[in-house]
């Protein structure tokens, strides 16, 4: 490295500094420090003339380091970096000495404050001597995005991105997109879930920029923000687009299984169409249950079926990934509030199917075998730590959904006695209007607290014993049907998701966002975004909004076609690194991995992922990992300079 030539610039900041600190003395002292060739003081360094002073010195005195002793770097680091780069000096060769916030504004004894200011400058100079020029790097960024999950959040995100001119790949593991929203009878008094979804799906169908992979899974994700490589496994559907949905295959199919798209209310064949507006709009064979008897292949007149089809692996290159794989409904255990013991105890999701005109009952609310005269919702099933094995969180949508359905039921069957047995009614925001409406519709609300309701199934019928909190009395309600308002669980396959995408999850089991408050749609890993219930329970509206937001974030990350990388990040000295792997575990961004460089294990920093916290540097046992801009030698020099006159090393 060529000879160090430091310029020190002491700011008066009007009287803010000069009023307490003897700035002349500080500047004079700075001249005596090793490496310093010029030191000046000026009334406002941040002003134009102040900056020009520095620029001229850089040119005339060919300085290669600059120390500005003024205010906090939070205020003017950028200002002075720009200034010195305008004078042709690398902008990272600047060090700020904070003698205002840290000195003149908090100390009043002139001597002591001046002495401290001198030492603060000494520290800055000491660090400056070890500063190095750094370059911002740019990596190419693909203007394409992988969307995991074809529910409303994923679809919304895809539509937005396509709208911005990005190529989008939707990866859905079931044979149709649409997600659970498509199965919700009414998401608000006026709107059918199926309608909303099919409107969205139409848009997808007409959009050339969106490619949909159903029955597909992400099996591997490598690379980093801007340049991810995603490996997908496309499980066989066995049915191709020649299918006209004539339905003959379904008739001959010998295999019958419970229909997950009606939450087990009825059965479906091994070859089936998930629901009316399913997309892609043709049959699919459930490869997990099909016995390949070949009946369907025989009857199909359109040669749409090929049982020899096999799983394919495809590789996609994308700039970012949006995770929107949603949630699973809570699974009540047999006997929980009588679930599984009586056909008259159903879940909220099953009820939603019943209320859907497309349902097996054509929208008739038939529970067991008839329309019940009385029906009770039990809230918080599997949520808010209510029952054994229940999750600690509130599932956010059940109250509104239950009340909304209750209202629908009352509209259709005004005579029916409807009860809602709850802990707290969570109709937050404007959903409160539904709560009011429910009151008007004479729906009975019954509150319980610690003591949970008890369901009795007897020849006389169903009974719910509940301690009514507001009247502090045990009451027994005879009902003909019970709806369990089940909550949300993290999706079953979340472990695989974590393994493949390197996201992490919080205590409640949902994926953790970069910042709960200010970065709710970003994962800690750069280039990975989150939408919908994968980060925790949401209602359909919120999921859709998150979809838009995640898309927006992905867009602004990739829109320039390249990503600039802050240079103050970690760097490995391969000569020193022994590949011990300590740093890999401490990196919060999974930016470090162990690579084999001609037979040697070496830590490698994925520059695009590193956020520059430096914790790997601190933990590196051999000093091979260094945090550029905050290297060991720089900070040690600063430490020593704070305590002794003579310089470090």
């Amino acid at each position, binding site marked *: 490295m060529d000879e160090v030539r430091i310029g020190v610039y002491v700011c008066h900041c009007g009287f803010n500094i000069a009023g307490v600190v003897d700035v002349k003395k500080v500047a004079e002292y700075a001249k005596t420090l090793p490496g310093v060739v010029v030191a000046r003081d000026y009334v406002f360094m941040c002003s134009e003339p102040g900056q020009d002073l520095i620029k001229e010195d850089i040119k005339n005195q060919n300085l290669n380091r600059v120390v500005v002793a003024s205010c906090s770097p939070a205020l003017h680091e950028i200002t002075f970096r720009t200034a010195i780069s305008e004078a042709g000096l690398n902008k990272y060769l600047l060090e700020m000495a904070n003698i205002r916030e840290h000195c003149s504004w908090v100390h009043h004894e002139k001597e002591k404050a001046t002495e401290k200011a001198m030492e603060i400058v000494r520290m800055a100079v000491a660090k400056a001597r070890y500063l190095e020029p750094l370059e911002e790097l740019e990596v190419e960024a693909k203007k394409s995005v992988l969307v995991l999950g074809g529910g409303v959040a994923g679809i919304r995100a895809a539509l937005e991105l396509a709208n911005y001119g990005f190529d989008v790949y939707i990866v859905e593991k079931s044979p149709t997109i649409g997600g659970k929203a498509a199965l919700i009878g009414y998401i608000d008094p006026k709107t059918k879930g199926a309608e909303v979804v099919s409107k969205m799906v139409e848009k997808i169908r007409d959009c050339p920029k969106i490619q949909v992979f159903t029955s597909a899974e992400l099996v591997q994700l490598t690379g980093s923000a801007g340049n991810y490589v995603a490996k997908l496994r496309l499980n066989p559907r066995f049915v191709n687009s020649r299918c006209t949905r004539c339905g003959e295959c379904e008739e001959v199919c010998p295999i019958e299984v419970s229909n997950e798209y009606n939450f087990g209310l009825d059965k479906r064949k091994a070859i089936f169409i998930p629901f009316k507006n399913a997309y892609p709009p043709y049959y699919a064979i459930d490869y997990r249950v099909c016995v390949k008897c070949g009946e369907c292949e025989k009857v199909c007149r359109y040669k749409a079926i090929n049982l020899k089809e096999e799983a394919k692996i495809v590789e996609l290159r994308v700039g970012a990934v949006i995770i929107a794989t949603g949630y699973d409904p809570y699974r009540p255990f047999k006997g929980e509030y009588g679930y599984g013991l009586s056909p008259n105890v159903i879940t909220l999701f099953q009820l939603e199917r019943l209320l859907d005109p497309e349902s097996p009952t054509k929208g008739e609310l038939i529970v067991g075998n008839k329309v019940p005269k009385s029906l009770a919702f039990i809230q918080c099933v599997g949520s808010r730590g209510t029952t054994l094995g229940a999750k600690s969180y509130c599932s956010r949508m059940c109250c509104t959904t239950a009340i909304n359905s209750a209202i629908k039921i009352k509209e259709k069957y005004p005579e029916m006695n409807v009860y809602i047995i709850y802990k707290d009614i969570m109709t937050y925001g404007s959903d409160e209007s539904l709560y009011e409406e429910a009151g008007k519709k004479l729906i009975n609300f019954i509150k319980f607290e610690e003591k949970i309701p008890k369901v009795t199934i007897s020849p006389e019928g169903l009974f719910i014993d509940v301690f009514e909190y507001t009247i502090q009395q045990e009451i027994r309600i005879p009902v003909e049907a019970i709806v369990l308002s089940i909550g949300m669980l993290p999706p079953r396959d979340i472990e695989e998701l974590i393994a493949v995408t390197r996201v992490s999850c919080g205590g409640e089991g949902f994926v953790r966002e970069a910042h709960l408050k200010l970065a709710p749609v970003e994962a800690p890993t750069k280039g990975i975004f989150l939408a919908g219930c994968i980060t925790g329970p949401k209602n359909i509206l919120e999921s859709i909004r998150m979809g838009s937001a995640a898309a927006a974030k992905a867009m602004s990350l990739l829109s320039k076609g390249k990503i600039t990388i802050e240079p103050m990040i970690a760097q490995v000295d391969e000569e*020193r690194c*022994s590949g*011990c792997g300590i740093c890999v575990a401490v990196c919060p961004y999974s930016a470090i*991995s162990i690579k084999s460089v001609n037979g040697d294990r070496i830590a490698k920093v994925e520059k695009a992922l590193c956020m520059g916290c430096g914790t790997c540097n601190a933990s590196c*046992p*051999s*000093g091979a990992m260094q945090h550029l801009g905050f290297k060991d030698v720089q900070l*040690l020099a600063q430490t020593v300079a704070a305590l002794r006159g003579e310089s470090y090393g």
Partner: protein
Amino acid sequence: MAEKPKIAWYWCASCGGCEESLVDLAERLLTLFETVEIVFCPVAMDFKKEDVEKLPDNSIAVTFINGGIRLKEHEEMVKLLRRKSKIVVAYGACSAWGGIPGLANLYTLDEILERKYLEVPTIDNPKEFLPAKKTVVSIPEVNMKFELELTEPLPVLRPLDKVVDVDYYIPGCPPTPDVFWNALQTLLGNNLPPRGAVLGALWKSLCDECPLNETKPEKLLVKEFRRVDRTTPEPNKCLLAQGFICMGPVTRGGCKALCIKSNMPCTGCFGILEGVVDYGGKAISYIGSILDYSPMQEEEIRKAYDKIPDWVGVIYRYTLPASKLRHKVGLEFPKLIKEMVEL
């Protein structure tokens, strides 16, 4: 024939293990004796200080000094040998960084003497004598008096290079015969490495040559620390990953991972790497890093650390006198050492 290069060998505060390593050269010793002339080696041959003083300055080709500097005598001898030698080599961990005797730097000399001569259960010292500068033993029967002059101990132990300039270092406790032999070849050869180099060792840390490095999990995190004296490590699995405190990551390689190969964690005898300013500090840093708890779990963290009774002993086993702090703060010069005692 040309005169054989002169070699000197001296021990300070050390256990003799370093001399062992000399013996461990086995038949290679014969070759050694053919090629060099040993002019000083108190442990093996009878030489006196005068013999060294007689030698002209810089006449010794290489002097190997093992052990840290704990006594006045050590100080005088190494200064003398420095004057007489072209090359001075700090041989072994003690000489290079203080070694195990260096752990005594956490106690005042008085504490050490009391412990050694009064407290230790195996000591039989009814009159509670402590060593003094001069000890007079009188035997009335034959009315004779013997005087014994003991060299004065120094208040702290120092590595060799804190006392005289050191040209090269040979690491290990003790250095393995191979390491020593290779170092010897280099030293007697004609292209010498830059001054201050560590001979016969790697530039990287032990993990680099450790056969278990491959077996590390992707994220090296542990919930508890374990001790080899309590549980036997699973073979063929990174010991650190099992929770055993292995100093490998922070210790210079070159020993061919001998301890690891016998399923024992590295204790750090090959010493400090180039990029490290305080061996123990770095050790704290990576050991703390792999302990997998949040600050909310103070209890768990405390418990985990309590598992290891003597942390200083573990992380500074060979390097305490070469650490930033070097010794317990506020140590005082000894008071218990008297000018004279009569037995």
